C-alpha cells in the first residue's frame, strides 16, 4: 500500500517578507519540474492551511491551484498545526490508494511573524491557547523547557548536551541550499546566548521562518507508466491521535487528562505516533537509516530519538556524545540541519522533512548525504493532539 514520490521542491527558508502564495508556487513548480509531470496532468491539489494569512490561507489548496492556473483538479486543504503537511500528504495518499486520483500536488507555505508565536487576537476564555498566555504566561519555549528539564533531572542530561545538538545540526545544514541559517555554532555560542526559559538558551530554540515545500505524489502504476524507475515510496503516514488518558503535558494545555478511572496507556502519544508508522509500513526501527525529527528545541530532538525507538529511553545523550547521530554515525538525525537551521514554517515543515528524506534516499543530498540510505522516518508534534510520522523507503 505505497504511493510514489514523483517530485519534491522547496522555496528556501528565511525572513523574506513576501506573500506565502509566492513561496508556495515556487516550491510547487520546483516539485513539478523535479517530477517531469506537467501541471495540467495534476488531478488533485492539497494545500496546507496557514492561519496567519487571511482567507487565502484558510483555503490554501484553492489559493495555490488558482495561482498555478485553474486546471480543474480536485482540491482539499488540511490543517493539523505542525503536522499540517503530513496530514495534507495523507489526504492525497488516501485518494490515490482509493483509485480516485492519480497525480497529487501537495503544497505548504507560510509567512510568520517575528518573536514568540502568540495566539490570535480577541478574548477567548474557553480557548486553552489563549488562557495559557493570560493565566500563566506559558509560551511555547516554556513547554520545550519543561521537557528539557525532565531529561536533566531524570537522565542526567546537561546544558552542554543540548548545545551539542545545535552544534551538530548547524554543521549538517551548512551545505543545505534551502536552510536559513548556514553557519557553524559552538557549544560556547549556545551556552552564552540568553536563557529564554531555563534550561534552554536562545540558540536551543528554533526560530519562525518563511518557507514553502511541495511534494508530487502518484500511484505506483502511474509512476511505472511514466518511466519513473525505482522512485522513493511513502510506506506509512501516521497521524494518530492520543489515547485517553493522555497524562503527558501537551502544548497548549494547562493540564493533562487524569488517570483516576482509566490507567495511562502503555505508549505515550509521541511514542504511539512512531509506532503506528512502523506498524503500517511493516518496518523495524532498527532498519531506519536516518531521521528528520522536530527539533523545536535541541532537547526535543533527544526526546524524539527515544520516541521513535532509535534508542532506549534515557540513552539519547550517550548516542549524541558518541557522534552516532551525526553524518557518518550509526543513525544520523536531522541531516538537513533540522529546525535549528530552518526555523519553523508551520504548514510547510512536515513537507520539508519529506523533501529531505526523498533527496537522501535518492542520493541527492549534496554535502549532507547519509551514505547508503534506504529507509527514512520523519516525526513532528503539533498542538491539540496532532502529530505525524512519515516512513519513506527506496
Amino acid at each position: 500500500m505505497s504511493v510514489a514520490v514523483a517530485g519534491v521542491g522547496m522555496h528556501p527558508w528565511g525572513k523574506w517578507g513576501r506573500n506565502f502564495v509566492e513561496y508556495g508556487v515556487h516550491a510547487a513548480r520546483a516539485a513539478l519540474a523535479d517530477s517531469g509531470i506537467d501541471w495540467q496532468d495534476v488531478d488533485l491539489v492539497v494545500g496546507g492551511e496557514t492561519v496567519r494569512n487571511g482567507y487565502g490561507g484558510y483555503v490554501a489548496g484553492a489559493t495555490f491551484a488558482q495561482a498555478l492556473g485553474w486546471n480543474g483538479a480536485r482540491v482539499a486543504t488540511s490543517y493539523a498545526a505542525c503536522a499540517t503537511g503530513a496530514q495534507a500528504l495523507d489526504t492525497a495518499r488516501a485518494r490515490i490508494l482509493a483509485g480516485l486520483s492519480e497525480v497529487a500536488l501537495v503544497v505548504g507555505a507560510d509567512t510568520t511573524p517575528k518573536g514568540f508565536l502568540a495566539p490570535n487576537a480577541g478574548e477567548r476564555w474557553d480557548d486553552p491557547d489563549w488562557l495559557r498566555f493570560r493565566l500563566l504566561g506559558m509560551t511555547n519555549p516554556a513547554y520545550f523547557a519543561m521537557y528539557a528539564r525532565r531529561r536533566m533531572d531524570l537522565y542526567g542530561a546537561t546544558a552542554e548536551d543540548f548545545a551539542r545538538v545545535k552544534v551538530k545540526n548547524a554543521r549538517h545544514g551548512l551545505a543545505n541550499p534551502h536552510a536559513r541559517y548556514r553557519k557553524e555554532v559552538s557549544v560556547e555560542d549556545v551556552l552564552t546566548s540568553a536563557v529564554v526559559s531555563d534550561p534552554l538558551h536562545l540558540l536551543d530554540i528554533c526560530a519562525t521562518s518563511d518557507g514553502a515545500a511541495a511534494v508530487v505524489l502518484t500511484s505506483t502504476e502511474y509512476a511505472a507508466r511514466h518511466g519513473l524507475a525505482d522512485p522513493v515510496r511513502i510506506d506509512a503516514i501516521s497521524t494518530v491521535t492520543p489515547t485517553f488518558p493522555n497524562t503527558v503535558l501537551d502544548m497548549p494545555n494547562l493540564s493533562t487528562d487524569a488517570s483516576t478511572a482509566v490507567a495511562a496507556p502503555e505508549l505515550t502519544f509521541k511514542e504511539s505516533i512512531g509506532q503506528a508508522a512502523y506498524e503500517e509500513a511493516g518496518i523495524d526501527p532498527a532498519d531506519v537509516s536516518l531521521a528528520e525529527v522536530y527539533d523545536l528545541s535541541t532537547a526535543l530532538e533527544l526526546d524524539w530519538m527515544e520516541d521513535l525507538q532509535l534508542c532506549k529511553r534515557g540513552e539519547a545523550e550517550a548516542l549524541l556524545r558518541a557522534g552516532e547521530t551525526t553524518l557518518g554515525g550509526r543513525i544520523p538525525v536531522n541531516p538537513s540541519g533540522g529546525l535549528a537551521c530552518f526555523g519553523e514554517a508551520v504548514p510547510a515543515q512536515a513537507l520539508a522533512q519529506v523533501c529531505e528524506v526523498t533527496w537522501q534516499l535518492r542520493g541527492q543530498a549534496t554535502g549532507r548525504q547519509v551514505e547508503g540510505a534506504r529507509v527514512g522516518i520523519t516525526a513532528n508534534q503539533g498542538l491539540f493532539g496532532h502529530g505525524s510520522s512519515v516512513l519513506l523507503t527506496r
Partner: protein
Amino acid sequence: MTATPAIEGWFTTDPDPALLGTRCTTCGTVFFPRADGFCRNPGCAGEDFEQVELSRRGTVWSYTDAQYQPPPPYVPRTEPYEPFALAAVELPEGLVVVGQVADGYGVVDLRVGGEVELVVETLYADESGDRSIWRWKPVTEMGEEADQ
C-alpha cells in the same frame, strides 16, 4: 480591597485554597479545567458531573521560568518586567496541572519529584483591582533549607 480570581470558578480562595474540577459521576474520572455535559473517557457515556476540589499538594513533573516577557494576552505585573517560574505538578488524581510558582521562589527551589502546595496570589491588577491566580509553592521540610 480583596483580590478577585483572574478566572471565575477555577479555584477557591479559602485560607486553604484548592483547584476546582469536576468528576464524572458515571466513571469517576476527574477533569481540570472542569468538564461538563459529556465525559471525555472514550469508554464512558456519562453526562453528569459533580464539582470536586483537587488535592492541594502534588509533586513536580517539571519546571522552568519565563526570562522574557510573554506576549499578550499575558498582562505584565511590573514595569520593568520581572521573570517568574512555572511548574507542572502531578496530583494524586493522576493529572498534571501547570501553574506559576509562588512569589519569591525560582527554578533553584524546584526539582522533578519535589513536593509543592497550592497557594493563591496576585497575577495582575486592572481597573477592578487585584486579580488572583493559583500558584505552586515549594514545600520545604524542617531542616531542608539549611542543607541547601
